[in-house]
């Protein structure tokens, strides 16, 4: 993997990046387009090199746990998707890979899934990054539809498109949530419930940088918008302030590192926000430096945890003798983090200070304080476990095996050597990467002479040392800020609570209310539409009324009223029967002999069924009419609506009836004189086939309900 990435470096640095392209869902702009440009490869190199180290470390760290294999599998999956994020040229593919990193990190964070904290941490991490993912989805669609271009390398700078602000906001949401910036910074410490090597990989070296990478990629496209610099700088400053407080409060090694990671990411976001070519150079260098010191520090924390099963800085101490190589690693990485020469961290820090200085004095103050905090963190990680006074835990300690030590050492040595060998680094990696971001490279150097920022950094280191030695005092003085996690929980719970009450109201379990709602809404829709649209009724239609017709109508009306208001079952059934007779009568007088015959037979059957079955249904005494106002109103509303509908139906029609054809052809082609029957068994025989199917199913259903079609294991008792 590493070799592959390196082999791609050569053409990329010459300005002709390799690319790969095939179609996936071209209708939606989704092509699998990978483009190995120098910036992408630069990150890919970090991902693969550190990944290789982490794999080796993890397999030892997890031991013979049966889950190791699957964790390595998920790690590989994660690495692949992360490479997708950095190498994707198609923005939809970028989104796809982005989401894949979310999924795989979710599973990885939750590896210790029997621990409730791990589950909660994983959930929070996933939900927060999912907010970002969904924003990115929207941003990608907006971006693509606004420009018609789906490849990052071809996207034109946008500043006057009406959507640009929304796109920018969405991109920011995505980037800030992924890179744990304020106000989303709370998920990262929670995610530290993951096994330490996974934290080292995901939450320091790679995944959290995806947001930074996204912003860097969007820099050429969106940075001309007026909101770019202020937003990024302000948000990152807010993150830094939160981080400083959090660091002073933290006692857990991993939490310390996690908070400092948020700070480092904030620095990167800030640099991208400043957006000058010098700042971007600084960001690139810092990105490398951070990866090279933070991953080993995490691994050191992991080794300590592995050895003494404790990560609390107040309980650790005296491990330098027992774990010498771990201590060396810690020192190397720590020095880089403190920004002392000759490590890469020093070069990066100097550049950051210089970039900050060129922007605003208040910002530089903030950065200085942050660097101070870094120094303190580094001291905590390096000095306390190695030389601290609490030595009782150290008795059990043992040095980690080589398969864990080697990767740690190697990665931290990269920090050292790249600090020493800046010029090849510049030539092969940094400069091409920066160029592919669209800005001019700056010469790197460890020593810039005595400049204001050198003084600043010296000041910061001193202050950091002071803060470290006085940390117990500070610890007590620092006020507790409302935690973002708490706010997150409050919001979620509020929304969920709202959902619950809504569900409780809507799905309240009462069939009557369901029916009522359905009926009221339907009637309201119909009546509203009737008023709105031109639906003529024809109330003046007159036909002669025969006595027979009238009496049929009255019989129907009377028996339906009787059914409705019957207060006991027997009268109700009798009334229903008389209703059927009324229908039969009506069909007879309306020239529908087939209907009359069928209705008559069906009615008899229905009454028989009712009479046979009713012995089993409890009798009822209808409620008094007085308290049924609501029901009466709904019923009246329905009656009114249906009356209106009937009258609408009776207005002039559109002058066509297919049944004319039926009348003409029943005998000639259907060989029958009873047109209704010919329609049923010939013209529309499929309906009849369906109808007898319904009957058959009903018989099956009744069989099921009555128990004769049930084959339970035991015979029904």
């Amino acid at each position, binding site marked *: 993997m590493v070799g592959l990435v390196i082999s791609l470096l050569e053409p990329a640095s010459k300005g002709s990046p390799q690319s790969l392209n095939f179609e996936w869902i071209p209708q939606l702009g989704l092509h699998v387009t990978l483009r190995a440009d120098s910036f992408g490869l630069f990150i890919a190199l970090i991902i693969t090199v550190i990944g290789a180290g982490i794999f080796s470390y993890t397999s030892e760290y997890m031991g013979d746990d049966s889950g190791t294999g699957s964790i390595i599998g998920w790690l590989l999956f994660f690495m692949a998707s992360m490479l997708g994020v950095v190498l994707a040229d198609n923005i939809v593919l970028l989104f796809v890979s982005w989401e894949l990193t979310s999924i795989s990190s979710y599973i990885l964070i939750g590896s210790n899934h029997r621990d409730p904290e791990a589950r909660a941490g994983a959930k929070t991490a996933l939900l927060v990054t999912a907010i970002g993912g969904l924003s990115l989805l929207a941003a990608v669609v907006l971006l693509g539809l606004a420009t018609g271009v789906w490849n990052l390398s071809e996207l034109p700078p946008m500043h006057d498109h009406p959507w640009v602000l929304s796109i920018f906001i969405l991109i920011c949401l995505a980037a800030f949530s992924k890179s744990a910036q304020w106000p989303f910074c709370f998920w990262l410490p929670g995610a530290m419930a993951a096994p330490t090597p996974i934290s080292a990989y995901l939450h320091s070296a790679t995944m959290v940088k995806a947001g930074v990478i996204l912003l860097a990629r969007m820099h050429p496209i969106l940075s001309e918008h007026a909101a770019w610099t202020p937003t990024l700088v302000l948000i990152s400053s807010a993150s830094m302030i939160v981080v400083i407080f959090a660091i002073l409060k933290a006692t857990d090694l991993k939490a310390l590192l996690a908070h400092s990671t948020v700070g480092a990411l904030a620095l990167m976001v800030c640099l991208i926000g400043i957006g000058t070519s010098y700042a971007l150079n600084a960001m690139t260098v810092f990105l490398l430096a951070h990866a090279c010191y933070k991953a080993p520090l995490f691994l050191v924390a992991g080794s300590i945890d592995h050895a003494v099963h404790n990560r609390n800085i107040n309980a650790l101490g005296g491990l330098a003798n027992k774990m010498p190589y771990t201590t060396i690693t810690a020192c190397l990485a720590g020095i880089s983090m403190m920004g002392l020469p000759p490590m890469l961290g020093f070069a990066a820090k100097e550049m950051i200070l210089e970039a900050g200085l060129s922007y605003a004095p208040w910002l530089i103050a903030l950065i200085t304080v942050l660097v101070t905090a870094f120094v303190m963190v580094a001291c905590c990680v390096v000095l306390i476990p190695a030389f601290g006074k609490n030595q009782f835990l150290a008795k059990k300690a043992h040095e980690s095996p080589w398969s864990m030590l080697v990767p740690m050492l190697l990665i931290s040595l990269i920090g050292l050597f790249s600090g020493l060998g800046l010029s090849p680094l510049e030539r092969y990696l940094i400069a091409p990467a920066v160029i592919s971001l669209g800005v001019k490279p700056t010469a790197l150097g460890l020593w810039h002479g005595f400049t204001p920022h050198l003084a600043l950094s010296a000041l910061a280191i001193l202050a950091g040392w002071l803060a470290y030695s006085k940390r117990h005092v500070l610890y007590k003085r620092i006020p507790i800020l409302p935690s973002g996690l708490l706010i997150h929980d409050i919001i979620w719970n509020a929304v969920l609570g709202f959902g619950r009450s809504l569900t409780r109201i809507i799905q309240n379990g009462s069939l009557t209310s369901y029916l009522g709602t359905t009926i009221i809404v339907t009637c309201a829709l119909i009546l509203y539409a009737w008023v709105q649209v031109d639906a003529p009724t024809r109330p003046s239609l007159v036909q002669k009324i025969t006595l027979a017709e009238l009496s049929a109508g009255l019989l129907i009306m009377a028996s339906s009223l009787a059914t409705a208001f019957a207060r006991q079952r027997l009268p109700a059934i009798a009334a229903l029967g008389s209703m059927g007779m009324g229908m039969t009568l009506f069909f007879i007088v309306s020239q529908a002999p087939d209907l009359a015959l069928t209705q008559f037979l069906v009615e008899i*059957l229905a009454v028989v069924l009712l009479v046979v079955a009713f012995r089993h249904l409890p009798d009822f005494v209808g409620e008094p009419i007085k308290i049924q106002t609501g029901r009466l109103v709904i019923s009246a509303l329905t009656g009114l609506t249906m009356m209106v509908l009937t009258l609408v139906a009776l207005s002039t029609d559109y002058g066509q009836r297919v049944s004319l054809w039926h009348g003409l052809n029943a005998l000639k082609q259907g060989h029958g004189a009873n047109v209704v029957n010919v329609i049923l068994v010939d013209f529309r025989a499929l309906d009849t086939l369906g109808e007898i199917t319904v009957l058959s199913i009903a018989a099956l259903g009744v069989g099921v309900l009555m128990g004769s079609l049930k084959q339970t294991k035991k015979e029904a008792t």
Partner: protein
Amino acid sequence: MKSSPILDITLRWLVVLLGIVSFFLLLRGHDEPGGGFSGGLLAASAIIIVTIAYGADAGRKLLHFQPLSYIAVGLLLSVLASLFQWDTAFMGSLWITLSLGFTTLKIGTPLLFDLGVYVVVLGVVSSFVLEIESVVKTKKEGR
């Protein structure tokens, strides 16, 4: 229920009569009111009467086969009737006129289809009644 000879004889004749009338309804349905559905209902009413008079077992005996078998056979009959003109049109009808000397008889696949309807309706309605009646009976005996 205690059986009385008069009831027995009346019912026997009634059942035969209902059977014949229902078949008649089925046959004439194509030209006059009637058809498979009303025919089937009428035939089933014979089963209903017997069931109410003598109980579910008597009804079952009169049917000879289980109601569900009637249903399945009826459905298959209707399907069969619809397949005669397979090559040109599904459910296409086919008519033959038989000359019986004194009268001509029209026989067509729609008639077969209607017969299927008749059988299904007979099966379904008897199944309704028999199911409910037998449950009622077991309940009564259980008490």
